[in-house]
């Protein structure tokens, strides 16, 4: 069971051929591949599902988070041959309830019809470009990484909490993902304008660190 990009672990991207190699090994050994797209799915990384970017298909995939715009929901998807549950073997009282699924349908339809994944890719690239600009300016930024609108910025020291609080005071919410890294996971509908605004705040915050 794998995430395609480790989210909580720090926005860690796999090496280029890693996922294809895992898929091939699973095929060879007859092992099922479960892909956890809970954070990477629903357009966040620039395609509807992140596996599309790595040329592989999972046997089982899990979704949640962005599927219903904040209404609690989760989903297990599987290939026909793997879908071996018989009646009574699994269940959920609330799972699939009309309220959550109405929100999910509205969300997924909007994401597909409006190419929200494409927007995430475009704006995500702009975000990374602007963050790279900050990296040129501040030598204590050691890394900028991510795909689409799942992006992290790493520092040479454990200043992430200070950065988060300073951003807060200037009107920007960001996430401390590791003691020395902050993560950006904005709504996928933002434009370059919001990126510019966030970068402006980050610039001021990082300038005051020394």
């Amino acid at each position, binding site marked *: 069971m794998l995430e395609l990009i480790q989210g909580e672990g720090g926005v860690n991207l796999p090496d280029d051929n890693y996922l294809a190699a895992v898929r091939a090994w699973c095929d060879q050994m007859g092992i099922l591949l479960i892909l956890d797209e809970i954070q990477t799915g629903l357009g966040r990384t620039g395609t509807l599902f992140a596996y599309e970017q790595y040329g592989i298909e999972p046997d089982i995939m899990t979704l949640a*988070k962005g599927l219903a715009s904040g209404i*609690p929901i989760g989903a297990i998807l599987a290939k026909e041959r793997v879908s071996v549950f018989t009646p009574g073997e699994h269940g959920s009282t609330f799972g699939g309830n009309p309220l959550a699924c109405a929100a999910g349908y509205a969300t997924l339809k909007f994401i*597909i019809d409006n190419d929200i994944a494409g927007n995430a890719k475009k704006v995500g690239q702009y975000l990374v470009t602007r963050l790279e600009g900050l990296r040129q300016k501040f030598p204590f930024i050691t890394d900028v990484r991510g795909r689409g609108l799942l992006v992290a910025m790493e520092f040479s020291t454990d200043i992430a909490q200070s950065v988060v609080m300073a951003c807060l005071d200037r009107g920007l919410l960001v996430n401390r993902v590791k003691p020395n890294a902050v993560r950006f996971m904005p709504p996928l509908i933002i434009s370059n304008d919001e990126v510019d605004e966030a970068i402006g705040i980050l610039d001021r915050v990082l300038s005051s660190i020394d």
Partner: protein
Amino acid sequence: MVVAQQYRQLVKDRECERGFASIKKTFPLSFEGEGDKGGEVDKQSHNRVRKMSNWQELEHKYFMNAVERIPVTLVRGQGARVWDEDGREYLDFVGGWAVNSLGHCHPVVAEAVAEQAHTLIQASNQFYTIPQVRLAELLVQNSRLDKVFFCNSGAEANEGAVKLARRYGKLRLNGAYEVITTINSFHGRTLAMVAATGQPKFQQPYAPLPAGFINVE
């Protein structure tokens, strides 16, 4: 519906400050404005010295101390903006923890939820219901997978995926049951998903963990 119209207007507005003020007038919430005014600004760091608000004190009183929070109480969201209990506005690059794909309270979603809440909220899976079929169909049509099961969170989805894989293993793979996951992964907060999550700090408080999970580099 009135609520949906107001939100549509907000989205068109683009001036979130004005939008917030107007929606606050129309839909005042009883607790707004009761919070602390946020504390002084430290002259050296320019950072606000934050004091705990009434709501934060109540959280300490009633809520389990399991979560590390930033001392902000959020009360409203619209698009990529949120507002705290003192009316301060923030640009949201946390997105509800990578959840709010369409931003906060998108009119399309708010309308769908409001309409469904007046129609049928919960029936259980003992019966057929339509929204889950429509969503399942849309997911299958737009992915490389064939069948869907809905639950209520990512952790539940991962738990169900492992159950499905183990069922498959029992039926087709001579009883294979082990699940290989990676160091630095995160798969959820349920007991089995803590075992799956390759981060010792999440695992240590709960040994012995459910068997059959191997964390690798």
